[in-house]
């Protein structure tokens, strides 16, 4: 193995592993996991179920020492993943162990909108952990099954790129790329969009409207209730923090019921809603809860305003 990128133990090392097929995947991943175990590090692997099963088999007697998380579950909405890593880092750092993670958020089979969000998530990982405790995160990318644009983006979002045979600095890495990504717009909705304007005093009516629309779309009651809560929290944020008036838009798009809240406010912290606020902090839980309860949450904000798009899959 040619290793031209060095590892700085005091820093967050964020590395993309490009692989072709199962054998190549294992050839790249197993040494990373075993090195971690040999060094006494806490190894946490977040992969879709099939990959977890394969890794467990290959690791054999070493498997019990590894914490396995189902990425399709914990990262169904990519907005939840940073919170999972932050919790693992805090837990293991408190216990005096260095963390070594494997996370494949952009796994094959993801919807286009989810892959867009995975890209922002990868950028925000650098922002979230670059100035904190040192740990390593390896993010596998399936070169055979992922769209080319996703693979290209991984070069921009990871300072280190590797294969089973090489480990190199990524020349394309864009430090601080999350700033522009967080400010860029989301794809415009299709034609049949229901819109409404809400202001102070309209939150109950807004959440009822969203719930009624979600129900009329045929979403199960569990999803209707989650969307009703999301509507209440997001409209409340507008009233409390963004000038008091906003727009809600609802439409159907490619197997999803989409509800979007827009207002004139600006969110300065791009990690908003991804980390649980400290217990004593008064606000900041609404968007965190929406991220935890809804299928896909996309937040974008700039000087032109803030948009939160919530998609629920049928």
């Amino acid at each position, binding site marked *: 193995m040619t290793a031209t990128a060095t590892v700085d133990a005091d820093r967050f090392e964020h590395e993309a592993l490009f692989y072709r097929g199962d054998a190549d995947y294992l050839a790249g991943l197993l040494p990373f996991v075993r090195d971690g175990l040999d060094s006494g590090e806490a190894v946490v692997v977040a992969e879709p179920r099939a990959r977890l099963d394969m890794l467990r088999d290959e690791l054999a007697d070493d498997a019990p020492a590894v914490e396995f998380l189902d990425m399709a579950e914990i990262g169904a909405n990519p907005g939840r993943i940073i919170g999972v890593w932050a919790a693992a880092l805090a837990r293991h750092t408190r216990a005096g162990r260095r963390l070594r993670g494997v996370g494949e958020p952009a796994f094959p089979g993801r919807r286009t909108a989810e892959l867009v969000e995975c890209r922002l998530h990868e950028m925000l990982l650098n922002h979230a952990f670059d100035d904190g405790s040192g740990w390593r995160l390896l993010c596998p990318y399936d070169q055979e099954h992922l769209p080319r644009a996703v693979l290209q983006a991984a070069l921009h979002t990871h300072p280190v790129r590797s294969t089973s045979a090489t480990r190199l600095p990524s020349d394309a890495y864009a430090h601080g790329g999350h700033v522009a990504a967080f400010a860029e717009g989301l794809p415009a909705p299709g034609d049949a969009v229901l819109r409404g304007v809400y202001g102070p005093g309209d*939150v*109950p009516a807004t959440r009822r409207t969203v719930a009624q629309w979600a129900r009329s779309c045929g979403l199960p009651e569990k999803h209707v209730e*989650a969307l009703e*809560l999301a509507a*209440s*929290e997001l409209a409340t944020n507008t009233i409390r923090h963004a000038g008091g008036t906003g727009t809600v838009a609802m439409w159907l798009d490619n197997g999803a019921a989409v509800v979007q809240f827009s207002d004139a406010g600006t969110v300065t912290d791009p990690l908003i809603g991804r980390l*649980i606020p400290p217990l004593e902090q008064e606000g900041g*839980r609404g968007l965190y809860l929406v991220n935890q*309860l809804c299928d896909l949450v996309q937040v974008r904000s700039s000087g032109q305003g803030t948009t939160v798009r919530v998609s629920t899959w049928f």
Partner: protein
Amino acid sequence: MRTHGLVEDVPGAGPADHLCWVYADDAALDRAAREFLAGGLARGERLLCVGERVIESLLTSPDHDLAALIERGAVETLTLAEAYAASGPFLAEQQLAYYDAATRRATGEGYRGLRVLAEVSDLAADPGQRAELIRWEHMADDYAVHGAGFSAMCAYRADLGPDALADVASVHPVVRAPGEVSSFRMFVDGDRIVLCGSVDAFCSDRLARVLSAAQADDDGVVLHVADLAFMDVAGLRVVARWAAGLWARAVSVEVTGASALLRRMWQVLDLDRVAPVTFSAALA
């Protein structure tokens, strides 16, 4: 469960009635007052009218021979001045002592209970008195359920303003008001406190005030939320802080009838770290 909800007309009289009656005009109050009192008479209860406004309503009633009713003790009246003189400064505990004695006296004299009609808008209008009024309303609700036969209709003028009306309406099981003055209601049902309706960030401060007015047994408090249609993060945090305050006094809190979503919210927001609350299915 005890009858609760928003009504247009006076419900049929029953034990432990506790109605909040917001009225816009005198004629509407007169009609409701007569109906409420007639229900009490039919049940064999003594009537007690508190406040000049309802006494006047009673005096103008064409339905009964008031003099005869007063003569035989079936009806008593109390002006606010007399009420203060009888029970002292407005304190919930003193109110309870007064009405408990009056209820026992009524049952001791052969009545089935005491049915009170009180017009206490002036107390609700006074911001300095309102918190104590809310505490008394909750105590009165508990007494209606657990006492010796006490029922009440609390009449409030509609022009008190939205905040005062929301405060008083939120502590009655049955409310009549022009429009939704409070999106939630809290009342006593058996050994539990029932919270129903909707709570969001814009009324969570009120929920905090109302919960803090609730009486807590040392053995623990059961908060029943099966009829809670909606609660957001702010509302649930109020419940957690209330539970934490009780926990600090070694009083445990059990929440019954919570939806799957409410339980999930509690877990996601890690509110067990604020207060160790037990969630369980409701018995009834």
